[in-house]
């Protein structure tokens, strides 16, 4: 039995999209990013439903990665229980109690180690002519760069070949026109 080739290939990274206020989460969806023949597929899974968003390679204008402090804050928050449980384990004379506390400290230390290994956190956005959408799957700089490395050739292949210096020059022109706009309208 021959298996049909898969239409989508998984790109590195998984993340969650949180909907709610800063202290209360109304819903949370699990996000992943997949690469199709001519587009990127953003999959948001909430419970038993998947929603899809497609970004065609020919339409992708920019990818913006912004470093965040979430990883550093997470490290700081995880080091507190490690220290508390570690100190408690050292002060307790009872052997089963000491073992339990060391296990607790070790568990938090393990999560901290995972956080450290994953590297700095970031927020990634993809820009097209009509939208700028967050890619929660790329929540770590290393993952985002790894993913970018994989999709870059496909994006460049799907778009006209223009040297980056020319792109920058034309964008600078657009930007200066943007700032001159209201003045010329007034005259």
């Amino acid at each position: 039995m021959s298996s049909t080739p898969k239409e989508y290939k998984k790109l590195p990274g998984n993340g969650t999209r949180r909907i709610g206020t800063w202290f209360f989460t109304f819903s949370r969806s699990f996000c992943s990013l997949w690469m199709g023949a001519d587009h990127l597929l953003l999959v948001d899974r909430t419970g038993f439903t998947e929603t899809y968003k497609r970004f065609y390679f020919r339409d992708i204008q920019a990818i913006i990665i912004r470093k965040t402090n979430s990883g550093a804050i997470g490290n700081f928050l995880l080091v507190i229980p490690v220290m508390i449980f570690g100190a408690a384990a050292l002060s307790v004379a009872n052997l089963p109690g000491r073992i339990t506390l060391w296990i607790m400290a070790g568990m938090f230390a393990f999560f901290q180690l995972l956080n450290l290994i994953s590297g700095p956190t970031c927020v990634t956005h993809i820009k097209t002519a009509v939208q700028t959408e967050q890619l929660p799957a790329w929540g770590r700089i290393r993952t985002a760069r790894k993913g970018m490395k994989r999709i870059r050739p496909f994006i460049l292949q799907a778009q006209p070949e223009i040297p980056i210096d020319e792109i920058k020059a034309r964008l600078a022109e657009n930007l200066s026109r943007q700032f001159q706009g209201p003045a010329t309208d007034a005259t």
Partner: protein
Amino acid sequence: MTPAADSSLVKCSRCQTLLSPELFNIGDLIVCPSCQKLLDIEVFPAILNTPVTANFPEPILVEGESSCFYHPAKKASMVCESCGRFLCALCDLELNGKHVCPACLETGQKKAKFKDLENTRVLYDRIALIAAVLPVLFIWTSILGAPFAIYIVVRYWNAPCSITGRSRMRFVVAAILAGAQLLGWALVLLKVLSPHHR
């Protein structure tokens, strides 16, 4: 602000400040001049694209000219490849090189004919697996959970799974687990009703 100019502008995702093109495609983190956040921006040639302007249909000037099915006063420029209706430039919708009318597009989307338009799917395989696994934790609830899981497996076996190409393994696992639970309950029932037990 013209749409063309607006679409080519890149803003900081934190403070929404317009960024200078000199900061793009550096290959390393740069500092936003406004909020001081670290950014890595990669732009692609599509950023120079001007938005596509809409095609306006031409009015019928000569009597007897074929007209659009939806706009009788407008000249037909294309035929819907799905239903064969004449369409004006406004009603002609191109999808994967196929020209269709708005009605066929809507019907196709509802019936999941056009895979590229599909934006939601229900994961029945996941429902079946959860229905087969979760009730086991509360033991008695599996009397209801197992038949429900089997119903989902049978009813939605042919329903499409995730668009990313997931196999039907979850359905198979759910059916095996639910079957085992039902068998277990049947054995318990036999044991309880057997004359030796009494």
